[in-house]
C-alpha cells in the first residue's frame, strides 16, 4: 500500500523523470530490435523501419503505458482544471457573469434561510437541542395569551410526564450599581434548574447551587452575561465573588455566562440572571402564591419520542384538574404549548411573515440565477460545437469530453459558491440593522446556516453540471463530418430551434416580473406609512421611558410624575407633555382585561374584554387625538376622587349601543368600578392592519404604575432636539431617572412597519438583480440568434433590406419572449401579492400602479437588451458576410 502511494506521488510529482525513463526504455527497445534486424542481414534503414513496425508506433506504446500508470485519473483532472481555467480566463466576462449570478442566487438563499434558522428554529443562541424545547403559555377565556403563575409552574413541573423538565423565568428591569454610575439593565429571575435545563454552563464560575434556590428571600447571587461582564467589568475574572446591587439589593457574582448566550426570550438579550428565590426583594409586588399573578414564562423540554400534540393533551388535562381544584384562580384558563418557531411571543411573530415572503422570493431568485446560468452555458456550448467536433475527430473519447466539460462547470460552480458564501457572510448581519431601537435590548441572533449554503450550492451545482455537459453529449451524437463541413456556420432553419433556451428566457421574464411587482407592492406599503392615519400623530413626539426606583409608592409616585410633567411642560420648545403606560403602535400597545359593563348583557356566556392604557391628562392633546364627547382626564382625578375612564368609539358602540357611554359604568377585572367621562376617536394600538377593538384609558393618579412613558410634543415638530432638554428635566426631578432611554415616537412606528421595511428593501434589491439577470438572459439569446442569422441578414441586405428592417426583425424576435413571459409574470405577481396580503398596507395585490411600474421597468430593460444586438446586426457589411461563404 505504502509503496503504491509512493509510486502515485512519484508519478504525479516527478512526472518528467518518469516520462524520461519511459522514453529511454522505448528508444532502447527500438535500438535492440533494429540491431537484431541488421544482424539478420537487413540494410540499416530497412532494419529501423521494421523495428518501428514491430514495436507498433513509439507514441502509441507510450500512450498505452501512461494509461495504466497509477494517478492517471488525477492527472487528467488536473489537466482538465488547467485547461478549464485557461478557457475561462480567455472569456473573463462570461466567467464573471456566471459566477456572480450563481453567487447572488446562493448568497441570497443562504442569507434568508440562515435568518429563518437562527431567528425561528434556533432563536436561543448557546442553548442545547432547541428543537426539544416548547413554550408553555396560557390562554384565558377572551383568547388572550399570557404567562403563568408560580403555583401553576409547580403543578406542571411535578405532574408532567411529557417533559423531562420545566424551567421558569421572569423578566426583570433593575438599576444595577457597584458603588459607582448606576445603570439600567435587563435580566431574568429564573428557576433553580434554569441553566441545567437549557444546557448552558457558565464560562466562568458556576451557576446556582440547590441551597441558593431553596427558600424565598435567600440566594442573593447573580450570573452575569458575557456582554455585561466585558462592557462593565472589562472582562475581569476577579469579578467573581464581588458584590453588585440590583435595585439596591446586594448580590454576589458567582458566574459569567458563555459568550453568545443571552437567555431564553427569543429576540431579547439579557444581562444577568438571579434565582427565583430573589422574588421577594426584586419583584415585591408579585403575589407568589396566587394563581392570578402571571409573572413567569415557562419552557418545557420534551422527552424523546413525545410529540407536541401528546404534550398538549397532557397539559390540557393538568389544566382542567387545576381549574377544578382552584376555580377562582384558573377559571377558563387553558395551558397552550408552542414550538419555538410558532411562538406568539418574542421575535417569531414579527419575523415569521417577513421570512416567509423572503424565502419565497429568494427561491425565485435562485431559480432565476439557475435559469440564467443554464442559458449562458447553452449559448457558450453551441459556440463550442466546432471545438467538440474537432476533438472527437482527433480521437478524444466521449467520456473524456464529458469529464472535461463537467470540470469546467464545476469550476464555475465553485467560483459561484465562494462568491455566494462571501455574499451571505456580508448580508447575514444586516437583519439587525432593520430593527429600530426599542428601549429593549433587542437581539437577533445571526449566523450562517451551513445546510442552507450546502443546499443552494448543490442546486446550482447540479444545474451547471447538467447544462454544462449537454454540448459534450450532443456533440457526441451529431455526425462529425456535417459539423466540420459547416465550418461553424449554421443554416437559418436551425436558428429558430432553441425551445429550451427560449423557454428559459420566458421563465426569467415571468420571475423578474414577480419580484419587481412584489418590490413595488412593499415599497408602496412603506410609502403609505408616511401618510398613515393611525388616529394619532406621533411625528413631533419624543418618547422617554421611565422606570421609577422601587422607593416610590402609590402616593410619592404620582407626585413625582406631576412634578416631572410640570417641569417638562415649562420648557420653551414643548407644546404638550403627558405620561402613558403603553406606547401606541409598539409591541406593548396596551394591556388586555376582561370586564363587566353595567346594563350590558353579553350575547353569549363568554366573558368580554377590552384593551387599556393608563395615561395622564393631556395625553390626547400630545398625540393630536380627537376627544369626541365629554372631558379629558384631569389632575383632580386623584386616588380619593371617583374612578374615571375614557373609552374609544368602538368600546362605546359595542357596550353602550345606541345610548351615550358618558355616565356609564364598567368594572375591569381585578380593578374597581369606573365611570366613563369621555369618548375619543378610534386609533391604531398594536398593528397598522388591526381591526379596531374596544379600548379605554385610566387615570395615572388612580392606577399607579412604576413604568411609564413620557410623551413630549415639540413646538417645531423636531422631537430629537428635545431629548437633551427632557433628560436634564428628568435628572433634576430625580437623578435616578437619568438612566432612561429616549426615542422619537416615529421609531416605534417604524417598528410597526418592520416587516414591510425589510420586505421592500430586500425585494427592491432582489428585483433589480432579477431585472439585470433577465436583461442578460434576453441579451444572450437575441445576440446569439443575431450572430447565427448573419448570413441571412447579408442576403437580406443584398436584396435591398434597410438597416431598420433588419433591426426590427431581430428586436421583434426577442420581444416575442417578453410578450409571452409578461402575462405569466403578472399572474404570478398577483399570486405572490395574495400570499403576502397581510404584510401589505393600503395597497391591493392587484394594484395597477405597482404592476404597471414593474411591467414598464421590465419592458424597458428588455427592449435595451434586445436592441443592442439588433443594432449590431444592422451594422453588418453584407459583402464580407457573403464572401465568407
Amino acid at each position, binding site marked *: 500500500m505504502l*509503496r*503504491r502511494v509512493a*509510486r502515485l506521488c512519484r508519478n504525479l510529482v516527478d512526472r518528467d523523470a518518469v516520462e524520461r*525513463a519511459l522514453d*529511454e*526504455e*522505448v528508444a*532502447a*527497445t527500438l*535500438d*535492440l*530490435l533494429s*540491431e*537484431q534486424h541488421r544482424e539478420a542481414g537487413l540494410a540499416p534503414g530497412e532494419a529501423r523501419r521494421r523495428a518501428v513496425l*514491430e*514495436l*507498433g*508506433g513509439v507514441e*502509441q*506504446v507510450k500512450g*498505452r*503505458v501512461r*494509461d*495504466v*500508470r*497509477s494517478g492517471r485519473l488525477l492527472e487528467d483532472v488536473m489537466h482538465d482544471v488547467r485547461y478549464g481555467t485557461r478557457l475561462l480566463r480567455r472569456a473573463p466576462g462570461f466567467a464573471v457573469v456566471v459566477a456572480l449570478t450563481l453567487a447572488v442566487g446562493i448568497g441570497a438563499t443562504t442569507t434568508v434561510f440562515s435568518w429563518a434558522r437562527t431567528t425561528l428554529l434556533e432563536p436561543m443562541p448557546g442553548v442545547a437541542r432547541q428543537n426539544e424545547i416548547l413554550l408553555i403559555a396560557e390562554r384565558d377565556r377572551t383568547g388572550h395569551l399570557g404567562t403563568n403563575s408560580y403555583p401553576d409552574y409547580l403543578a406542571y413541573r411535578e405532574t408532567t410526564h411529557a417533559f423531562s423538565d420545566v424551567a421558569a423565568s421572569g423578566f426583570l428591569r433593575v438599576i444595577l450599581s457597584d458603588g459607582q454610575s448606576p445603570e439600567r439593565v435587563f435580566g431574568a429571575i429564573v428557576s433553580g434548574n434554569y441553566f441545567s435545563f437549557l444546557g448552558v454552563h457558565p464560562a466562568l464560575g458556576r451557576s446556582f447551587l440547590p441551597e441558593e434556590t431553596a427558600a424565598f428571600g435567600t440566594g442573593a447571587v447573580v450570573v452575569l452575561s458575557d456582554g455585561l461582564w466585558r462592557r462593565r467589568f472589562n472582562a475581569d475574572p476577579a469579578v467573581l465573588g464581588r458584590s453588585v446591587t440590583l435595585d439596591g439589593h446586594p448580590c454576589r457574582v458567582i458566574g459569567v455566562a458563555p459568550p453568545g448566550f443571552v437567555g431564553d426570550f427569543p429576540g431579547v438579550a439579557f444581562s444577568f440572571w438571579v434565582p427565583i428565590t430573589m422574588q421577594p426583594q426584586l419583584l415585591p409586588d408579585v403575589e407568589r402564591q396566587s394563581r392570578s399573578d402571571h409573572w413567569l414564562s415557562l419552557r418545557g423540554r420534551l422527552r424523546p419520542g413525545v410529540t407536541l400534540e401528546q404534550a398538549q393533551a397532557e397539559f390540557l388535562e393538568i389544566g382542567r384538574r387545576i381549574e377544578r381544584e382552584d376555580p377562582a384562580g384558573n377559571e377558563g384558563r387553558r395551558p397552550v404549548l408552542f414550538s419555538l418557531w410558532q411562538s406568539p411571543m418574542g421575535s417569531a411573530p414579527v419575523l415569521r411573515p417577513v421570512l416567509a415572503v423572503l424565502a419565497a422570493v429568494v427561491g425565485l431568485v435562485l431559480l432565476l440565477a439557475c435559469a440564467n446560468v443554464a442559458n449562458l452555458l447553452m449559448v457558450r456550448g453551441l459556440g463550442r460545437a466546432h471545438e467538440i467536433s474537432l476533438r472527437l475527430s482527433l480521437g478524444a473519447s466521449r467520456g473524456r469530453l464529458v469529464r472535461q466539460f463537467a470540470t469546467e462547470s464545476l469550476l464555475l460552480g465553485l467560483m459561484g459558491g465562494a462568491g455566494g458564501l462571501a455574499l451571505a457572510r456580508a448580508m447575514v448581519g444586516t437583519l439587525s440593522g432593520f430593527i429600530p431601537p426599542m428601549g429593549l435590548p433587542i437581539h437577533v441572533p445571526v449566523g450562517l446556516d451551513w445546510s442552507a449554503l450546502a443546499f443552494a450550492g448543490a442546486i446550482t451545482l447540479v444545474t451547471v453540471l447538467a447544462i454544462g455537459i449537454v454540448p459534450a453529449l450532443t456533440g457526441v451524437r451529431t455526425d462529425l463530418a456535417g459539423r466540420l463541413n459547416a465550418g461553424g456556420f449554421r443554416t437559418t432553419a436551425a436558428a429558430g430551434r432553441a425551445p429550451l433556451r427560449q423557454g428559459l428566457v420566458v421563465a426569467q421574464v415571468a420571475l423578474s416580473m414577480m419580484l419587481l411587482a412584489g418590490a413595488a407592492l412593499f415599497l408602496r406599503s412603506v410609502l403609505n406609512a408616511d401618510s398613515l392615519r393611525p388616529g394619532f400623530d406621533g411625528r413631533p413626539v419624543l418618547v422617554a421611558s421611565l422606570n421609577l426606583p422601587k422607593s416610590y409608592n402609590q402616593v410619592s409616585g404620582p407626585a413625582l410624575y406631576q412634578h416631572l410633567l410640570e417641569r417638562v411642560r415649562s420648557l420653551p420648545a414643548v407644546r404638550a407633555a403627558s405620561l402613558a403606560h403603553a406606547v401606541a403602535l409598539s409591541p406593548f400597545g396596551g394591556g388586555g382585561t376582561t370586564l363587566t359593563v353595567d346594563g350590558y348583557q353579553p350575547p353569549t356566556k363568554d366573558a368580554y374584554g377590552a384593551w387599556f392604557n393608563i395615561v395622564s391628562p393631556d395625553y390626547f392633546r400630545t398625540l393630536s387625538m380627537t376627544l369626541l364627547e365629554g372631558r379629558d382626564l384631569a389632575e383632580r382625578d386623584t386616588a380619593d376622587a371617583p374612578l374615571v375612564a375614557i373609552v374609544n368609539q368602538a368600546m362605546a358602540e359595542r357596550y353602550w349601543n345606541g345610548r351615550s357611554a358618558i355616565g356609564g359604568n364598567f368594572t375591569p377585572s381585578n380593578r374597581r368600578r369606573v365611570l366613563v367621562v369621555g369618548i375619543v376617536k378610534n386609533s391604531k394600538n398594536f398593528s397598522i392592519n388591526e381591526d379596531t377593538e374596544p379600548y379605554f384609558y385610566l387615570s395615572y393618579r388612580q392606577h399607579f404604575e412604576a413604568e411609564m412613558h413620557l410623551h413630549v410634543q415639540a413646538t417645531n415638530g423636531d422631537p430629537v432636539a428635545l431629548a437633551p432638554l427632557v433628560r436634564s428635566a428628568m435628572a433634576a426631578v430625580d437623578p435616578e431617572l437619568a438612566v432612561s432611554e429616549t426615542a422619537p415616537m416615529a421609531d416605534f412606528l417604524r417598528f410597526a412597519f418592520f416587516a414591510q421595511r425589510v420586505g421592500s428593501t430586500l425585494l427592491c434589491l432582489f428585483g433589480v438583480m432579477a431585472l439585470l439577470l433577465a436583461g442578460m438572459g434576453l441579451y444572450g439569446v437575441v445576440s446569439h440568434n443575431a450572430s447565427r442569422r448573419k448570413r441571412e441578414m447579408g442576403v437580406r441586405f443584398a436584396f435591398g433590406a434597410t438597416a431598420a428592417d433588419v433591426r426590427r426583425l431581430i428586436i421583434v424576435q426577442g420581444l416575442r419572449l417578453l410578450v409571452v413571459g409578461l402575462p405569466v409574470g403578472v399572474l404570478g405577481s398577483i399570486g405572490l401579492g395574495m400570499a403576502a396580503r397581510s404584510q401589505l398596507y393600503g395597497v391591493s395585490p392587484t394594484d395597477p400602479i405597482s404592476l404597471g411600474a414593474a411591467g414598464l421597468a421590465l419592458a424597458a430593460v428588455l427592449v435595451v437588451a434586445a436592441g443592442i444586438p439588433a443594432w449590431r446586426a444592422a451594422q453588418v457589411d453584407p459583402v464580407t458576410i457573403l464572401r465568407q461563404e
Partner: protein
Amino acid sequence: MTLPRNEMLRGTLDLLILKALSLEPLHGVGIARRIEQITRAAFSVSFGSLFPSLHRMEERNWLSAEWRASENGRRAKYYRLTARGRQRLEAEAEDWHRMARVMKDALESA
C-alpha cells in the same frame, strides 16, 4: 466461462511474462522472444500490450527493474521477479492447472 477476449488475454499475458522471468532477468525484447519460444510461437507478443503489462506489474511490485548493459553492450531495462511476483506466478499457475484439468474433464466427459 465467458471472459471478454482481451481480458482473458491480459491475464494470460501477465502469467506468461511472470513465467518468462522465472529463470533470469530479461529486457522487454528478451521477454517477447522468450514467450514466443516457450509457447512455440503460438503467442506473438505485441509491444503495445507488453509494456503496459510490465509497467503495471512493476507498480504492483511483482516485478522490479534495473538498467544494465545488454548482451551486445547497450543499456537496457531488465525486469526481474520479486518475491511477490514469484508467489503470484505459483498461485496463478496453480489456478491455470486446475482450470485446465476441469476443462479437460468437462470436454472429455461422455
